[in-house]
């Protein structure tokens, strides 16, 4: 595409798309989730196994996921067990990482934990610090987004959005993006899932692991099927949030990183050509 072509190409209006509340909470969450993830993996490493039920089976089997190291004919190897199936996970750094002379036997490797070495106490301090900010930010976002209409306008999918999903899937698969005034069907579904399912779920399962909270809200234990199941769900939701993050970043690059980033910093977003103008738009 040449410069001349770009200059003659019609431009859509510049619209004020993201309110200050959306932008600030977005970046606070980005920082929180970064620290929560890496300290969460540190905490997981203290006992790198997940179970179903109230307790952890040491004399019976109720584990669904485990990272460890095993001795083989070829020397020690990292081993990950998912639903009873063993996988050699040395290449991923799970169970065993570091170099050949100085192997490190931890669940997740030091490159993805804070601190980079085993330090459960620090991991917990940092996790709970950002956990509080994360929860407070969710509260602020829900109140602000309910009042300013962001939830109604952009997040909760409407029947027309559901009907538009197949076409939107095709558009995404072919990297053809429409930059409209509100979000597309898949965007709405993704954000709805994050705000109304994943965020509440990861907070509630986190609280279910607190013995203090268990005394005041034992129904949380029943809701999730036990403290260890809650821990497993907490982990699975983490994986889903990481998956969301990866797709989120890919979509930002695919849809035009400058425009997307600008809208999340300044609020102003360049819509696709042909988007009807409305009051308050800039050319």
């Amino acid at each position: 595409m040449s410069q001349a072509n770009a200059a003659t190409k019609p431009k859509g209006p510049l619209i004020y798309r993201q309110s200050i509340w959306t932008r600030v909470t977005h970046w606070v969450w980005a920082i929180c989730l970064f620290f929560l993830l890496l300290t969460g993996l540190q905490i997981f490493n203290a006992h790198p196994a997940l179970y179903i039920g109230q307790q952890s089976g040491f004399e019976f089997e109720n584990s669904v996921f485990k990272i460890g190291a095993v001795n083989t004919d070829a020397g020690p190897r990292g081993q990950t067990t998912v639903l009873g199936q063993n996988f050699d996970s040395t290449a991923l750094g799970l169970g065993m990482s570091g170099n050949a002379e100085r192997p490190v036997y931890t669940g997740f490797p030091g490159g993805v934990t804070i601190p980079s070495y085993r330090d459960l106490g620090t991991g917990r301090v940092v996790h709970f610090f950002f956990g509080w900010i994360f929860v407070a930010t969710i509260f602020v976002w829900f109140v602000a987004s309910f009042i300013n209409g962001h939830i109604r306008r952009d997040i909760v999918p409407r029947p027309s959005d559901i009907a538009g999903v197949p076409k939107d899937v095709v558009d995404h698969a072919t990297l053809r993006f429409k930059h409209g005034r509100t979000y597309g069907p898949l965007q709405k579904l993704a954000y709805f899932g994050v705000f109304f399912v994943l965020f509440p779920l990861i907070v509630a399962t986190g609280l279910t692991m607190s013995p203090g909270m268990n005394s005041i809200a034992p129904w949380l234990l029943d809701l999730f099927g036990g403290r260890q199941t809650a821990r497993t769900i907490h982990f699975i939701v983490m994986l889903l949030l990481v998956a969301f993050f990866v797709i989120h970043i890919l979509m930002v690059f695919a849809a035009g990183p400058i425009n997307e980033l600008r809208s999340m910093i300044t609020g102003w977003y360049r819509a696709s050509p042909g988007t009807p103008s409305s009051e308050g738009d800039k050319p």
Partner: protein
Amino acid sequence: MSRLITRRNFLRTSAVAGSGLILAGCDQFDFLADKSGPARQIMERANVLTYSVQRAVIGEQTLAREYAASEIRQGMRPNGSVDPTTPEYLALKEANFAGYKLTIKGLVDREVSFSLAELRNMPERTQITRHDCVEGWSCIAKWTGTPLGPLLDMAGVKSTARYCVYHCFDNIQRTLSGDILYYTSSDLIDAYHPQSILSYGLNDEVLPVSNGAPIRLRIERALGYKQPKYLHTIELVDDLTPFGKGRGGYWEDTGYDWYGGI
């Protein structure tokens, strides 16, 4: 043609962004482990917030969940010290704890001591509870013992007392300059909680050495490191700084939060 280039650029930028994220973890944030650092000091305020909020929303007497006998599916997993080697403890163990005394001292009207036989003859409470280790695992077991609250009343806790410090026999860590003995502490709410029992029985047997014989205190609304094993002295104080490194317990001194309710 232009579509192809766009895709290639797209993949290249994605790869660069992805590798940046992997590098981000590493060791840039190891400074947060420095307990005297300003960032760490600020972050530890979150632990105080957790403690205050839980104390505000959870009733002082609210019980930890108790389970049915059918939920006891395994022995109680021993962790931390499992066989103390201090001469004092070995001598007591040799005599089947006949000479054992539990002492309550400090900010009390009168220092009191109880033998194991006296503790066993006091009102008994049995509870099947879930033990949650800070590491992440849980284990359900049946604990039998006498509630701590009435014993504290016998000693007469002074109004200035704010914490109980629990002193233990076990040398949790051995260093060149000598053994480090386990200790932890709680506020008076946890000490007086109806499920806070001085346990001498586990799963209908005498509490074994690996689980803290002869006496282990249960504080059921907190994590495992707040359940001191091999307990011998309870000291009522108004300040935790004179003990150990001043953070209220052995694990607390290494960086665990003092409250331990989350």
